[in-house]
């Protein structure tokens, strides 16, 4: 089978070479796969992929789960955005997940993924994601592939440098992209940026057992833009590194005004030092309003709690928490290699890439080898912290991932390529084009202490002619390259949903066997659960009508409901009585102004319905559950607002008719 494909691909490859050789330019997009590319990405029907690829959805506010090497899409996982397909953000249980200090916010811009680690290595427990617009972080449980928790970030103008994590998932960070006025006096002229605008970096503690997040402390930092970050590891564990741009402190036309300096900064944060100050009680409590939303798998519902305080350390008062390392020029990526010794700054407007040495940086601190200060914070002398520069690597370096063999892979937006180079020798080893304008890239385990290697995946911003056109808006394109040989090899293009920014890939073996199949019905603690058809009922409480409904192949109980009146608020609390893997039921009713709900086996979910007209209204199961799915339906009778029709409900009651 494989050899046959090899032969076909080989002969195709030969054909392409021949065509090029004869000077015939192939029409359409460039095709540069060669040799056995097809067999390397072919996952036979019924076979599993080797890696999960957990990909941010950017402006769709979701994550998407793909298989690598096949590029097959398995799941769209709603995080910060409502998802009518499952009822996320529409069901009464999930609405609180999207609550914020601004009220219900049904959308966000999810940029970065961070997978939990233990001792610097993937542990397959949680995936974290950031909300860039209304600053938030989310935790996804990798046993259910559901959003388990969302924490709003106060004192932030946009949560971009987030949610990068420390070696043992002690902390994840949330650095503000935009500096803003903070504290009591926020009504200030925009032109007072230098005096009044501040940065803020939140350190979010993660409970090692439950994964629960809380803002342990915030660092108040100088006012400029915080872009990306990475935690130290190994020898640099205890430190965090943030790329900063707009050290010019421009507040208008940043395109021009924030790119004037030849260097900006990488901000190095000694978070263990910050912990010491906190332990000494040096943190200041400040008022701040932010929402903390948690989904409970036993009650099958989310609760939103509004919190009102954060602990702040102003780095200007504690200058040994933070140091600046000069970095050319408007750095974007700030990536730490697997050994923890090297920190790669990707000055997106620079023609070279500096690689800093953690040990040299430590020596520079000891010797106070500073070139000055910024707002009282020491600025390390560039050369004192520098391991070396990658010269002329390409145009527009953005992000760097690593393999286990000392190599780095950097994406170049402007020159649309991935460049492989050696971290120690800084020698450029290989370069491959991407189609087109690559943003982030991902090597399985690439940000960890133990990369799994094998592939690098490019997430491109521009697709143009790579796929059949679909009007002005095109799918975003991912591309898979083998990095097993000395030279990178393009294997596959695959379309993605939303606009992927960062993604991580993790061996399937770390997640697959922990995947939840059903929710045990005996553990269902939903207050409106009907844990058996005998418990199905309809109750009126004033204007509210609560339907305790059950769903099992292939009927809903009750399926005849009377006594609902125009103007009522009807809550369909549907419990899926199935205890069988992959048998969800759905529920929808005509005229509902929200969505459907999908109910997993053993779960209860609630759809609110406000009937506006008199009539008999059908409802039905929306998920093709069984051979009698089309039969899985019922009727709700709606009487006039002033009627006396009594509440009545049944299933299978044919009034004695055979």
């Amino acid at each position, binding site marked *: 089978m494989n050899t046959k494909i090899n032969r076909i691909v080989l002969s195709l490859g030969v054909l392409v070479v021949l065509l090029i050789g004869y000077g015939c330019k192939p029409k359409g997009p460039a095709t540069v796969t060669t040799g056995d590319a097809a067999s390397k990405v072919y996952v*036979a*029907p*019924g*076979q*599993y*992929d*080797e890696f999960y690829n957990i990909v941010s959805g950017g402006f769709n506010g979701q994550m998407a789960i793909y298989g690598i090497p096949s590029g097959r899409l398995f799941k769209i996982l709603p995080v910060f955005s409502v998802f009518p397909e499952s009822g996320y953000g529409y069901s009464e249980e999930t609405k609180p997940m999207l609550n914020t200090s601004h009220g219900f916010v049904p959308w966000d811009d999810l940029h970065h993924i961070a997978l939990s680690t233990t001792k610097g290595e993937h542990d397959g427990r949680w995936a974290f994601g950031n909300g860039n617009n209304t600053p938030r972080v989310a935790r996804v449980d990798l046993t259910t592939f559901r959003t388990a928790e969302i924490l709003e970030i106060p004192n932030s103008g946009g949560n971009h440098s987030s949610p990068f994590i420390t070696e043992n998932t002690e902390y994840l960070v949330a650095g503000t992209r935009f500096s803003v006025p903070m504290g009591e006096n926020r009504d200030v002229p925009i032109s007072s940026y230098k005096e009044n605008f501040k940065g803020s970096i939140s350190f979010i503690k993660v409970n090692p057992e439950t994964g629960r997040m809380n803002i342990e402390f915030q660092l108040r930092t100088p006012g400029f833009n915080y872009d990306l970050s990475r935690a130290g590891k190994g020898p640099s564990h205890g430190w965090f590194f943030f790329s900063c741009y707009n050290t010019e402190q421009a507040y208008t036309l940043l395109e021009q005004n924030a790119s004037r300096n030849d260097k900006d900064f990488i901000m190095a944060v000694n978070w263990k030092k910050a912990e010491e100050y906190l332990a000494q009680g040096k943190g200041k409590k400040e008022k701040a309003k932010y929402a903390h939303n948690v989904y409970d798998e036993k009650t099958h519902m989310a609760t939103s709690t509004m919190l009102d305080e954060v602990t702040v350390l102003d780095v200007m008062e504690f200058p040994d928490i933070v140091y600046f390392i000069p970095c050319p020029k408007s750095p974007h990526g700030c990536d730490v290699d697997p050994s923890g010794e090297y920190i790669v700054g990707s000055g997106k407007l620079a023609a070279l890439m500096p690689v800093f040495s953690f040990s040299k940086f430590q020596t520079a601190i000891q010797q106070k080898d500073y070139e000055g200060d910024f707002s009282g914070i020491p600025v390390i002398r560039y050369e004192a912290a520098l391991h070396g520069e990658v010269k002329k690597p390409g145009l527009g370096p953005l992000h760097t991932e690593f393999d286990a063999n000392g190599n780095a892979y950097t994406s170049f937006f402007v020159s649309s390529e991935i460049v492989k180079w050696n971290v120690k020798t800084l020698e450029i080893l290989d370069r491959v084009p991407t189609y087109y304008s690559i943003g982030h890239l991902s090597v399985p385990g690439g940000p960890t202490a133990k990369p799994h290697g094998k592939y690098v995946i490019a997430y491109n911003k521009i697709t143009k002619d790579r796929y059949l056109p679909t009007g002005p808006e095109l799918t975003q394109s991912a591309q898979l390259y083998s990095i097993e040989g000395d030279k990178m090899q393009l294997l596959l293009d695959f379309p993605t949903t939303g606009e992927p920014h960062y993604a991580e890939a993790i061996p*399937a073996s770390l997640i697959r066997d922990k995947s939840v*199949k*059903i929710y045990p019905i005996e553990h269902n603690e939903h207050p409106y659960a009907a844990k058996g058809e005998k418990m199905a009922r309809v109750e009126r409480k004033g204007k509210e009508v609560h339907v305790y409904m059950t769903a*099992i*192949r*292939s*009927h809903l109980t009750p399926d005849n409901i009377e006594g609902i009146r125009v103007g009522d608020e009807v809550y369909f609390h549907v419990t899926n009585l*199935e*205890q*069988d*893997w992959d*048998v969800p039921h759905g529920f929808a009713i005509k005229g509902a102004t929200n969505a459907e709900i999908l109910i997993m*086996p053993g779960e209860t979910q609630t759809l609110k319905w406000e009937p506006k007209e008199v009539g008999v209204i059908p409802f039905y199961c929306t998920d093709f*559950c*069984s*051979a*009698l799915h089309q*039969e899985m339906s019922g009727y709700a009778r709606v009487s006039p607002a002033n009627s006396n029709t009594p509440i009545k409900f049944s299933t*299978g009651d044919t009034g004695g008719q*055979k």
Partner: protein
Amino acid sequence: MKYLLIIPLMLLLACGQQQTDSTTEATGAPLGGGQSTVKDETSEPDVVRVAVGSADHTTLVTALKAASYVDALSNAGPFTVFAPTNAAFEKLPAGTVEGLLKPESKEALQNILEYHVYVGVINEEFVRDGMTFNQVNLDNVTLNKSDDGKMTVNGANVLGKVKASNGVVYVIDAVLLPPDKK
């Protein structure tokens, strides 16, 4: 209950494994096995696993395998299976079962087994005396229910009921024989 089922489940899986061993790759995923070979030790057992787990239904299970209906009945269904016990099969004239299990009798065997299966869940609570149900083979069975709730199907006594993930199994004391085709 769950533990009792593990052994037959393993047998089932082992059975599926034999077919796929030669083609299974390093990732260990299934390839080409039917729905009955899905590895799932968490879900409630389906009608097939209920039958496999019962010492009184070995003949029925043998027949289901001979008729190639193990995968079909592992489907989402839902099914109502009238499951004759081993003793029920023994009541048939000598040699009947052996004859049906022969490859050349497969269609006849399938017809008989189809006559024991209704697509849909029959809940005895809603059964009224004399109700008829059209079975998979398109012939009707008649359910009778006495005042004390005892149920029969075509005169065979219902001895017990086991709920399954994809339907319900009614254990009966006689094999249901479909009417002769006209």
